[in-house]
């Protein structure tokens, strides 16, 4: 039986560009166009654009919006009290298990835009709506919203040219309006590649026009989910479903920084405080593997004994060798610790490495 799969507003663009399409969380998505390494390098050296319209967008508004969301997410909304600022966070169940990771944009007075993973859209909607009081309204904007990530050292130059003179780009982790080639959009200075760049929200009906306009720049390459994965893993950015899920708390997942100690009263706060007090048993670490490509589920060994499994693993195009993340016992989590990864019939040596694996990018230059 052929399963159709959901299509983003850019589906026909991908097919016309000769993309290899795959099923991702029930969506027909491009995994690659020219090739993963080529696309990866385009983002590290110029500009790559990604269709991420499969992600979910919820708009939350009302007098109690801030207070209600504070109870749902682990991070502190006071960090984005300024309009137009954005916050990376997770939301957890009562046991501290991660339901999803998300970005909350403070888009207006009494209003927040939440971007969630495609695979978790329904789960997140059910969870959030169950925990919002009736005085707060929530709208699922996902179907009518397209999202295009524009990433790379020259991304801001391209967006600036389309937005025209007089437009000021948002700062890192901020969001603002723009008209790109006179199409009204929301431009967020966020991304998942480790390069400087933006994510452009627009109405689904305008997505193809913006996509084509972006591709009219010679330095812009279309990029698929394959390059998105190698880029994010070089930075050590976690992926829901591989690096975290309902069975792990944010502290063990290395996301303690999005569950500030000073904040209490949110769902999962007690469980997370307990993990902190007792210190976690396992931790998510980075691994450098010089021979072979580690992949999700491969065993991580210490002295021949299995001590964990690879969470995310790939070949790093920038570094030219394997990189991975894995949950290992805390005693084996220090950078420099020698471990092994079972790569099918072989055992490859691995060294615990503090991410990011790739240290110098246009984003790291922006931060310093």
């Amino acid at each position, binding site marked *: 039986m052929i399963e159709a799969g959901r299509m983003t507003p850019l589906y026909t663009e991908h097919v016309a560009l000769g993309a290899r399409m795959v099923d991702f969380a029930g969506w027909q998505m491009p995994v690659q166009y020219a090739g*993963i390494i080529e696309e990866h390098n385009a983002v590290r050296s110029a500009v790559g654009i990604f269709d991420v319209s499969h992600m979910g967008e919820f708009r939350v508004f009302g007098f109690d919006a801030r207070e209600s969301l504070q109870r749902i997410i682990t991070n502190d909304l006071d960090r984005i009290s300024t309009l137009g600022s954005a916050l990376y966070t997770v939301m957890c169940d009562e046991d501290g298990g991660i339901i999803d990771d998300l970005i909350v944009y403070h888009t207006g007075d009494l209003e927040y835009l939440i971007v969630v993973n495609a695979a978790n859209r329904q789960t997140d909607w059910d969870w959030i709506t169950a925990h919002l009081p009736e005085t707060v309204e929530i709208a699922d904007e996902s179907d009518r919203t397209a999202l295009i990530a524009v990433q790379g050292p020259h991304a801001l130059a391209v967006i600036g040219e389309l937005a025209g003179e007089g437009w000021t780009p948002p700062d890192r982790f901020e969001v603002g309006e723009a008209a790109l080639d006179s199409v009204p959009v929301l431009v967020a200075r966020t991304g998942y590649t480790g390069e400087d760049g933006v994510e452009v929200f627009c109405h689904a009906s305008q997505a193809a026009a913006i996509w084509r306009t972006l591709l009219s720049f010679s330095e812009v390459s279309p990029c698929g989910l394959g390059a998105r994965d190698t880029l994010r893993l070089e930075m050590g950015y976690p992926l829901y479903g591989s690096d975290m899920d309902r069975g792990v708390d944010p502290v063990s997942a290395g996301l303690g920084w999005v569950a500030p100690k000073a904040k209490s009263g949110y769902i999962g706060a007690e469980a997370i405080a307990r993990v902190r007090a007792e210190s976690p048993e396992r931790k998510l670490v980075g691994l450098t593997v010089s021979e072979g490509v580690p992949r999700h589920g491969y065993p991580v060994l210490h002295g021949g004994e299995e001590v964990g499994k690879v969470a995310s693993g790939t070949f790093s195009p920038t570094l030219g060798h394997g990189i991975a993340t894995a949950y290992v016992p805390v005693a084996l989590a220090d950078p420099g610790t020698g471990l092994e990864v079972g790569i099918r019939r072989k055992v490859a040596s691995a060294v615990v490495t503090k991410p990011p694996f790739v240290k110098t990018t246009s984003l790291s230059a922006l931060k310093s």
Partner: protein
Amino acid sequence: MYPKELKYDREHEWVRLDGDVATIGISDFAQDQLGEVVYVDLPSVGEAVSTGESFGEVESVKSVSELFSPISGEIVEVNEALEDAPETVNEDCYNAGWMIKVKVEDTAEVEALMDADDYEAYIAEEA
């Protein structure tokens, strides 16, 4: 894309017979499906290979595939250059991207493989 002078198997390897030595690599279809090759894991000279059995692996960013021998025999040469330049498999799969050379036990085994036309029809059916 599928040279007429080569023979092909159902696992997308090609074979070029020269006397009783067969050169083996993967087809253009196989390298395209894999994407950019980042590792090629090959056996050593002197090892035996058997029809239908794995003799190595070829790995791209996204996936890994076993290499299956289309014939039985003894390995007389492996393409060591692929260790440092695995991308050669994508760039020139029928020449510089060859993988192993095998002294075949029975050349009739090679003759029994698909010719280019049959292989092309086989791919069209599979796709």
